[in-house]
């Protein structure tokens, strides 16, 4: 029971990250390899805000995604937008290069040991739930990610803006003809997807050590999550994220040695049975 709950906490990181990837992929058709690096950057900016500007956790939770989102917009405008007429794989290669640069720079300036980031005072301590000791902060992580995930889902699936977005995904030319600024929408979407990564980064900062490699290992797992869920639906990305967190949590109890690969094994099985992913549309 306690273990399941812990799995859910990990699942929330997977969900927020794969959601960001899915949003970006939906509109730009780009797999954002830099997602892990931007997640790391989000955590680092949270740390910098605290240590250089004395800005605490709560403002950082908003500010850091804004800064990273802005950075993402800059990347999209100056680089990614030049690649839209080419094969999508170039987008993957470009973002891979960007990830190397970002991680390398942070490694040069901040070393590898990592920085410590204290849990905000309001959320320190925890509750004894009888079956487990639940740190308040972890509970907050789950709550915050659920809210963000479903907020995003609502915005995209249930609002007018979301309708434009979905329409632009299907047929950008037609939507453009209706007088909607599609390139701007693409730019903002990228910024938003990246901001989600940064948000996850700030959430992660107090529990994992803030270090330049924190995103590199995570992103590959998230890729697998995305393949399992399929890129088609926002809800698919969210549910798969939480679900795989649970599965991984169970694996840690019953077969800890295999817990690192369980997601990849599931991926292989899904590929054999339903190649387009659990929630995916055929590509």
């Amino acid at each position: 029971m306690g273990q399941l709950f812990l799995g859910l906490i990990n699942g929330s990181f997977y969900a927020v990250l794969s959601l960001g990837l899915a949003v970006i992929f939906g509109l730009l058709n780009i797999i954002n390899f830099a997602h892990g690096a931007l997640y790391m950057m989000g955590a680092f900016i949270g740390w910098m805000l605290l240590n250089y500007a004395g800005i605490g956790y709560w403002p950082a939770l908003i500010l850091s995604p804004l800064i990273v989102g802005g950075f993402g917009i800059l990347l999209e405008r100056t680089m990614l937008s030049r690649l839209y007429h080419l094969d999508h794989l170039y987008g993957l290669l470009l973002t891979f290069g960007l990830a190397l640069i970002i991680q390398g720079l942070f490694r040069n300036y901040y070393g590898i040991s990592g920085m410590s980031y204290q849990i905000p005072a309001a959320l320190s301590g925890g509750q004894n739930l009888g079956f487990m000791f639940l740190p308040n902060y972890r509970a907050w992580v789950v709550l915050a990610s659920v809210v963000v995930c479903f907020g995003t889902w609502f915005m995209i699936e249930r609002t007018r803006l979301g309708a434009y977005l979905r329409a632009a995904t299907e047929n950008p030319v037609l939507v453009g003809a209706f007088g909607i600024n599609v390139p701007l929408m693409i730019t903002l979407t990228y910024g938003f997807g990246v901001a989600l990564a940064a948000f996850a980064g700030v959430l992660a900062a107090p529990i994992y050590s803030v270090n330049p490699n924190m995103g590199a290992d995570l992103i590959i797992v998230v890729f697998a999550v995305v393949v399992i869920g399929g890129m088609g639906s926002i809800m698919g990305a969210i549910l798969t994220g939480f679900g795989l967190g649970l599965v991984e949590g169970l694996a840690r109890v019953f077969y800890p040695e295999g817990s690192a690969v369980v997601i990849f094994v599931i991926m292989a099985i899904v590929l054999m049975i339903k190649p387009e992913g659990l929630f995916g549309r055929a590509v």
Partner: protein
Amino acid sequence: MIKRLATCTTALALIAGAPTLALADIDVKLGVLNDRSGVYADIAGEGSVIAARMAVEDFDAAGKGLNVEVISADHQNKPDVGSNIVRQWLDQEGVTAIVDVPTSSVALAVAQIVADANKIFLASGPGSTALTREQCAPTTIHWTYDTAALANGTGKAVTDAGGKKWFFLTADYAFGHSLEENTTKVVEANGGEVVGSVNVPFPATDFSSFLLQAQGSGADVIGLANAGGDTINAIKQAAEFGVTQAGQKLAGLLIFINDVHALGPQTAQGLQLTSAFYWDTDDATRAWTERFEKERGAKPSMITAGVYSSVLHYLAAVEATGSTDGDKVAAWMKANPFEDALLGKGYVRGDGRGIHDMYLYEVKSPDESTGEWDLFKKISTIPGEEAFLPMLPECDFTKS
């Protein structure tokens, strides 16, 4: 007999060497090979290069007819990159000693190459006991620590202090398993027992479910048979889940001062660990640290201290033998004890294992700590003879 022979040759070399020294300088080239970008960049990296230069300076090499040059490179923790650099250094650049080399995989590759080239390997950075056991080589001098010494020191001290029941969080690869195995032996020899362990995939960021298992095991002590970022994360999350507050103790089996610094005393307090060196030990270490810090901007780890100490002894050997020949220098280094400001007194055993005292430290609480780097208090001294594993007879290169 052998020892006498060694001292004899040394004496001969001294007599024979003395006049020639005045005539021609001996070229010594130290190749500091370590991780300058990855996990060990903070505990070794540029710090080891600075420490090596300081040793050359303090030895007054120029005044003693040694023409010493220090070069460095990044092995990126890749054995192929490391061995390529070392081959090139030895074959083409005339490097006479390879220094530091954290990361055991690289060190093991380097040790063999250095032995083939008959030069010296001053291993301060790596922890693998294989360097003086399964893969021992006549020219390997394993200076500062090894995993067995750390496991031994911490395992014994914690068990003696009443931590009888152990649970291990073990990084699931060779290093983690050997650390667990070494510590288990020590714990059992001292009347403790191991109540369980869990193999954690490496590298891991989330330890919560493993900590929960440890919590449920009823152990007194949770042994962290892992390193670097894994150890940091485990300690951090143990604090978060109230593991330490609930009375269980953590024992870090491979942890450096830079890791503790990254955690901060708030999180790491009470953690016990073994080290060969702590900067705030006495006036000599503080004075040295001050010089070091001016260049590096951080306090030295035991690895950097070990680089300084090992280079001093090496230079003394080169001066005495008037040679950079690997066998001759190694024989002198093993035949003569050393003493310096950082690691104190010690000697090098026949298998190349540097023997010196190790210390058990406990991380101070935030109230006790007066500064960012005021982190350790000494619990006990572990005499060198007890700290390290006994020598394997087949690895004693002073016999044969």
